[in-house]
């Protein structure tokens, strides 16, 4: 019974997300939203990288687990913000996002995979694993910033 309720809830949630996507969100708002997600990704990646690299001491497994979980969720959010209708908006997003869409989508997927792995390790309080995996996450960030974001 509980499961059916949950399934119904999920169905409604998914339906409303689809509804949001279908509604015509203004391009400038989409840009603002995706930039907000990027800013927050930085906010939560910062402490993980700081502690994993030993720059910020002591290593706090609780902070890392919390930040990595937030990051895992955030990593799923920016992508529908890169809608074709935002092409003309002022931002650092390069036209290659749409002309090399397959590559962009692959990196977007990789970020979600790598942050999920990071979150799993962080929640398992596996500090050694986190220290390796945060670099893999950073690598995907950098790979996408290379060809898809304007160099400031």
């Amino acid at each position, binding site marked *: 019974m509980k499961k059916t309720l949950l399934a119904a809830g999920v169905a409604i949630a998914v339906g409303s997300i689809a509804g949001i996507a279908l509604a015509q969100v203004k391009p400038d708002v989409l840009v603002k939203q995706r930039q907000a997600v990027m800013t927050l990704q*930085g906010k939560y990646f910062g402490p993980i990288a700081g502690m994993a690299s030993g720059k910020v001491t002591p290593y706090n497994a609780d902070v890392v687990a919390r930040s990595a979980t937030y990051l895992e969720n955030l990593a799923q959010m920016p992508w529908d913000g890169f809608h074709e209708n935002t092409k003309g908006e002022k931002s650092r997003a390069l036209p290659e996002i749409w002309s090399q869409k397959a590559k962009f989508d692959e990196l977007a997927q990789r970020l979600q995979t790598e942050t999920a792995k990071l979150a799993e390790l962080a929640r398992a309080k596996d500090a050694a694993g986190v220290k390796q995996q945060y670099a893999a996450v950073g690598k995907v*960030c*950098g790979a996408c910033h290379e060809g898809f974001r304007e160099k400031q």
Partner: protein
Amino acid sequence: MSRTSPATAGLLLFLAATLCFAQGDAKRGEYLAKAGGCLGCHTVEAKDAKDKPVPYAGGRALKTPFGTFHGPNITPHPEAGIGRWSEADFMRAIREGRRPDGSNYFPAFPYPSFTLITDADLRDLWAYLRSLPQSSRQSEPHDLGFLYRWRFLVSFWKWLFFEPGPFAPEPAKSAQLNRGAYLVRALGHCGECHTPRNFLGGPKKDRFLAGAKDIAPNLTPTRVGKKGDGELKEFLRTAMTPDGDVAAESMAEVVTNTTSQLTPQDLDALVAYLRSLPPLPDEAK
């Protein structure tokens, strides 16, 4: 209380000094090779976390508007690498952009910057390269556009854009600023990406480090001036800003191979030099 006699202390000091001289050069050369970022072009990219390519065995592809260049093997292997070179061959390669047979290197090899490296540093670099393990990995040929295949055409390019000769410190400036200038202009060859180029691929000298559109940002105080010393240095050590923004791949690699390896004094000098540059506006969009 035990005491070391002055004679023993003197002997130990003498031994330490001799050891430093005997091994010092290659060791200094190793640091210089990091400051020069040699690894970036002369080592293939790791395919995944487990892949450990042989350092300096060559292979990295550098894509340019003129074609794709592949950094060659510079380990001391006699056939695949530069094992048959003399020290003079090496000095000429870097100072003059010439191969041992006298023909030109393409300026994808950043000798327009490296020519500024001092003789003493070149000798240390050479000692370090000689000390590397040999690798038999074959260097890949360049894949260049139709017009750009002829090395003799590079003579014309050099005549236009290349001034050979080592770095001359400016006596009016502090030792720190001169060191910073040397690190940025000679070893670090920052201008190769951060200075815009004209249609012939020659650097626009009046726009030194003002940033090249779509390639690398402006490093003059126009842009860098807004950032504090701490933020700049942290970026050069970690490839991240304090707010968690991550550098693009190519610069992240420069941070890993070069700037994060610099001594604190050298990093200070580098930042001080960037701050002393004339502020230049960004390229027109």
